[in-house]
């Protein structure tokens, strides 16, 4: 008998059908991966399982008993615990407070802090993160460490079913290695794990069973390893999977000065002597392990960091960029698509139209008065160009799916017709279809004469999109790969700071396995 079964579950939000007659069956002691594009119904599925929303129809059976969860607390009591993609930690409380937040140990109504601390230490140990101090405030921890606390918090509730929603997207490489071990151990203890991820290699590494969702329905369930990546992607997107990356344009040689040149850029101890050149028409990639200074480099270019040294040249002339306002001015024409679209990219409660025009106000206004007609024309042009799926431009941007929100962020910057476009991991947590559209767009923009600087945590993306890749290590450029030198193998070898060329038959996977051991 399976541990958990879901049958005929449907859910509508207003007119939109999020989940239609969905079926899922989970066993204890196995890791069950759920795949699908954004908007395929994965999020709704786990929200129903964990009591965040209620299904309109259908049934859920846990251990042979029909169940229905009124709220997340009810699901937790029944043993279904979710590690959400959006962090559920309270920033101003300590790690220990957070781990026992929903059910703290009490003594006559007063929280017993000694017991609480012991519980926290135990939960952290179970999550393989003994190095996190239980009294540290969550707001002082890095994103990766917070995610580990999130997992410890879930384990502190002794779940029978643990749901992980993109749980590794914020983790550093060492924490990822750590969490793989933890998940495998939990599996061997008999826990049922539901694993949602966009990263195919994670699924290959961890999953026992897989279910694919497409347009709110489960379209296929199979044992892991019985389908090729290509078949899986075809099922996910429901159409033929052609080459994901647009063809690269042949490198041009030119005597003109490069559009963007950076000489010996330094900032505190996080950036060391970074130099680069980007010519019009080029897509320059930034590679390396997460957190090696890639984000800081983009922020430094965009004028966000104080106290940088070194030189930035535009069209061969030195410029001083000391704020994003200067960076986006027509003279420089720089745009930055930030890492966190929800806080740095968008004003979530405001409309799509308002979000699109924020950066380009000066282009559609005269003496401080907005020309509504010009504004609308620009908005229409961008909406068409990017094919944003939205119920009009007057709806709040938070009603859009993640991929479409990201398109709005990009569209907002295309409004100023930038010549230099910096992107900070723009496809993180985005569905395959939208990814392809973004790759094509980047190539088109480059062909039209822009220089693109793309930081990505996805090596495939760097290989497929970039004409040149700078691999950063510890704030410095470790190596620069050009054209056919850009392979997954070379990227990983440089990222791991391997000095010599590794053995010729060593694949990317083994390189990773070595670092993880």
């Amino acid at each position, binding site marked *: 008998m399976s541990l958990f079964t879901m049958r005929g579950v449907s859910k509508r939000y207003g007119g939109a059908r999020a989940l239609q007659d969905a079926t899922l069956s989970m066993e204890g002691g196995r890791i069950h991966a759920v795949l699908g594009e954004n908007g395929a119904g994965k999020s709704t599925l786990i929200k129903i399982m964990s009591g965040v929303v209620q299904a309109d129809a259908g049934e859920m059976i846990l251990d042979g008993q029909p169940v229905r969860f009124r709220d997340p*607390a009810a699901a937790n009591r029944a043993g279904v615990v979710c590690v959400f993609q959006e962090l559920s930690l309270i920033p101003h409380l300590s790690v220990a407070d957070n781990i026992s937040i929903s059910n703290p140990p009490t003594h006559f109504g007063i929280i017993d802090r000694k017991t609480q601390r012991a519980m926290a230490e135990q939960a952290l140990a179970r999550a393989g993160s003994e190095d996190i101090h239980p*009294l540290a405030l969550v707001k002082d921890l890095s994103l990766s460490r917070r995610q580990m606390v999130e997992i410890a918090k879930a384990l502190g509730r002794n779940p029978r079913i643990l749901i992980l929603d993109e749980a590794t997207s914020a983790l550093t490489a060492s924490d990822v290695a750590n969490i793989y071990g933890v998940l495998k151990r939990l599996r061997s203890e008999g826990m049922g794990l539901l694993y949602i991820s966009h990263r195919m290699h994670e699924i290959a590494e961890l999953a026992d069973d897989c279910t694919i969702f497409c347009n709110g329905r489960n379209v296929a369930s199979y044992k892991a390893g019985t389908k090729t990546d290509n078949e899986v992607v075809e099922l996910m997107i429901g159409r033929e999977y052609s080459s994901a990356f647009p063809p690269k344009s042949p490198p041009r040689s030119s005597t003109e000065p490069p559009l963007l040149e950076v000489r010996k850029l330094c900032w505190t101890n996080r950036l060391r002597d970074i130099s680069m050149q980007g010519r019009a028409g080029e897509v320059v990639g930034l590679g390396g392990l997460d957190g090696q200074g890639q984000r800081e480099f983009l922020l430094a270019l965009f004028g966000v960091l104080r106290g940088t040294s070194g030189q930035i040249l535009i069209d061969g002339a030195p410029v001083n960029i000391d704020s994003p306002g200067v960076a986006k001015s027509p003279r420089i024409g720089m745009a930055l698509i930030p890492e966190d679209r929800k806080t740095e990219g968008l004003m979530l409660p405001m409309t799509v139209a308002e979000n699109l025009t924020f950066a380009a106000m000066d282009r559609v206004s005269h003496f401080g008065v907005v020309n509504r007609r010009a504004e609308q024309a620009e908005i229409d042009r961008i909406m068409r160009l990017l094919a944003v799926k939205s119920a009009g431009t007057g709806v709040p941007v938070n009603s859009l799916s993640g991929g479409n929100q990201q398109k709005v962020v990009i569209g907002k910057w295309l409004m100023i017709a930038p010549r230099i476009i910096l992107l900070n991991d723009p496809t993180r947590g985005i569905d395959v279809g939208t990814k392809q559209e973004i790759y094509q767009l980047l190539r088109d923009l480059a062909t039209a004469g822009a220089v693109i600087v793309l930081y990505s945590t996805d090596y495939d993306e760097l290989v497929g999109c970039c004409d040149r890749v700078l691999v950063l290590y510890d704030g410095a450029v470790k190596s620069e790969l050009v054209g056919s030198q850009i392979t997954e193998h070379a990227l990983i070898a440089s990222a791991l700071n391997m000095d010599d060329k590794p053995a010729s038959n060593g694949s990317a996977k083994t390189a990773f396995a070595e670092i993880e051991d």
Partner: protein
Amino acid sequence: MGDWYYWHREHRGTLLAIFAFVVMFAIYSFNHPVGLNANVATTAANKGVLLALVAMAQTVVVITSGIDLSVGAVLVLANCLASRIVLGDTISTGMGVVGVLLVGCLCGALNGLIVVYGRLQPIVTTIATGAVFYGIALALRPVPGGDVNAQLAEALTGKLWLDIPASLVLLVAIIGLVWMPYRRSVIGRATYAVGSSESAAYMSGVPIKAAKFTAYTLSGLLSAMAGLFVTFVTYSGEASAANGSTYTLYSIASVVLGGVSLFGGAGSAVGAVFGALMFRTIGDLMFVFNLEPLWQPLFQGLILLAAISLGAVRLFQVRNRLELYD
């Protein structure tokens, strides 16, 4: 890094407020013409405790990232009511005190109900209910007057053994018996959780509604305690709109001086108490340095500005401008 480091990190605002108050009070007592005698201390304590109670009331609501602009009105209402019913023999006086505190709770509970279930903004809700509470106070006491049980009033505003002001002991007792258990209870932690990140609190199954409701009710109770204490100090009731507004604004100033974040989630009523005492000491410092009382609001304002600026010093060290907006 050891436990003490994290303890200090969590209580930095409160520790800073205590330190600042001690420094200011030391300057005050060394420069006082007659030195710090028992009478001076008692008068200072009574004034300080009054504001401290209102500041505590404000703190519990501010921690939920709300604001209670009706604390002053509840104080005035409690004062007017107390001047009518806290009279007579022991039993009727006792019933009167309970009655006043109960009315305070009801006022706070009303705010809580409207904010939690009506989903209205705390700022507009409490402006409106504050006006209502003040209207009731005016009906109870159209002209200043009334009386209060003199024995009780003297006992609570006088001195105890070793010349310790009774009001300070009362304040410490309220902190120990109301605030401390509250802070360490499940509902108290939920108050912090709601203020720090309401969506995360919801996702974690924290009792959000109960936490907010309790915070507003507790705020009403503490404001009523302050109103009761006003009656003990003045031996009368007065429906003064000016008093109400002043206490409301001073309570917010005290909360800020006490290191409580107006964004919610961080700070302690203990910090706010010292913020209130600090704010009072500013006025007393004017007195010992022979400054015109007319200048008092100006100087209080300047010191408040300076205190807030101290909190902003870290911004000069920020190397990544994005962190300015965290």
